[in-house]
């Protein structure tokens, strides 16, 4: 929940007097409030947390972070069906015993 994800501003509009944007997070598009970064422009990148743009980010580091999150499955975790990751055994993963010595990489490879 504390994860903040970089995204790119696709469009900006005023809704009910609030500055809102559509933001692309590596394929997932979400509504984001720009009230805390009022001068953010279309095409720019920002760090977004629970639907709010909190800080500007340059394009290069935003892209790198998004790629990394994609590889690690973190985007799915953040934007996937909210009931799914919270269900006790939605993907069976939670009951998999942690493998001795394998760590993340192997866990990843197994999926």
């Amino acid at each position: 929940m504390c994860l903040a994800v970089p995204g790119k501003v696709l469009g900006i509009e005023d809704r009910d007097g609030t500055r809102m944007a559509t933001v692309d997070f590596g394929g997932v598009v979400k509504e984001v409030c720009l009230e805390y970064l009022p001068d953010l422009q279309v095409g720019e990148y920002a760090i977004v947390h629970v639907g709010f743009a909190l800080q500007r980010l340059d394009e290069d580091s935003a892209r790198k972070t998004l790629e990394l999150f994609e590889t690690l499955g973190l985007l799915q975790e953040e934007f996937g069906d909210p009931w799914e990751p919270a269900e006790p055994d939605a993907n069976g993963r939670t009951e998999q015993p942690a493998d001795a010595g394998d760590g993340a990489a192997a866990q990843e490879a197994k999926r």
Partner: protein
Amino acid sequence: MKYIEEFQDPALARKLLDDIRATVTRPWALMEVCGGQTHTIIRHGIDQLLPDEVELIHGPGCPVCVTPLEVIDKALEIASRPEVIFCSFGDMLRVPGTGRDLFQVRGQGGDVRVVYSPLDALRVAQENPDREVVFFGIGFETTAPPNAMTVYQARRLGIPNFSLLVSHVRVPPAIEAIMRSPSCRVQGFLAAGHVCSVMGTSEYPELAERFRVPIVVTGFEPLDILEGVRRTVQQLERGEHTVENAYPRAVQPEGNPAAQAMLADVFEVTDRAWRGIGVIPASGWRLSSRYREYDAEHRFSVTGIDTREPAECRSGEVLQGLLKPHECEAFGTTCTPRTPLGATMVSSEGACAAYYLYRRLDLEQKTVSREGASVV
């Protein structure tokens, strides 16, 4: 064994690790404050790649984990009311209260909904004028400004059927409480990057000076963590204790002034209980008196709740870095992510869950992953 490939830039990761090895001459204990950082560290085995002298202690920085049981019980009580639509971030649903969780309330007919943003909850309130919509407002300085904005908008748009169940926490008083504890072993802090994106770095120099402890603002990716560790260790070896920003791409020294202004308008600082730790003075926010009508505790006057912690859960010690998750008797036996006893096993940022998902239960692996690292 490919920890380092996952770092995206193996050459840089190796260089940082070499640098840390070359710098360190004696044992140091560093605390990563944020649960997101704990997750990265365990997932990639960063603690195993580091030289033996550098120990990472997991901090209390998981908002789901530190929300006190009493607040969870209040949430369960409010969510059970027939007139209420209870909205929450997904990771709060399985946090055990006394005897049940929000999932079970939903199974028993409660209208519990998961939202991505607090503004989504406000929209639910607009669409359901005949119901009471309550949003579960937990989290650190990163999450508090969005929630503050939502309350501000509720007032501005005149949405009367929206309220917030607030349990926000602040990092600097937690750092102070950790440093004051007689059993404290922490010699340096990796401060939480996204908290500083909002708050900037001005709250930290005084703490670094008073406790003579280096505080390095650190990001969340594996390379960020290594860079944070490198800078902290450098300071410790040189006998320095300053505040450094190792996450400049997302943190400006002044933070986000608009967000800080909204926090100051909507919230006021208050003492808060942290689950498993106890009350830390000035460590949280509550709605200021100007916004009291949007306070769900006030609106629903939840009282007389019988709150009971499971005795065998030692998450308080885990959250203070006094105990590693696998040292808890219940770890992996009576306590698993499917049947969690404590919030630290529920949340994706909780230390117990991170160990359960990614980590063997013993420490012999250190050697194994070292070999893995050197192969790269």
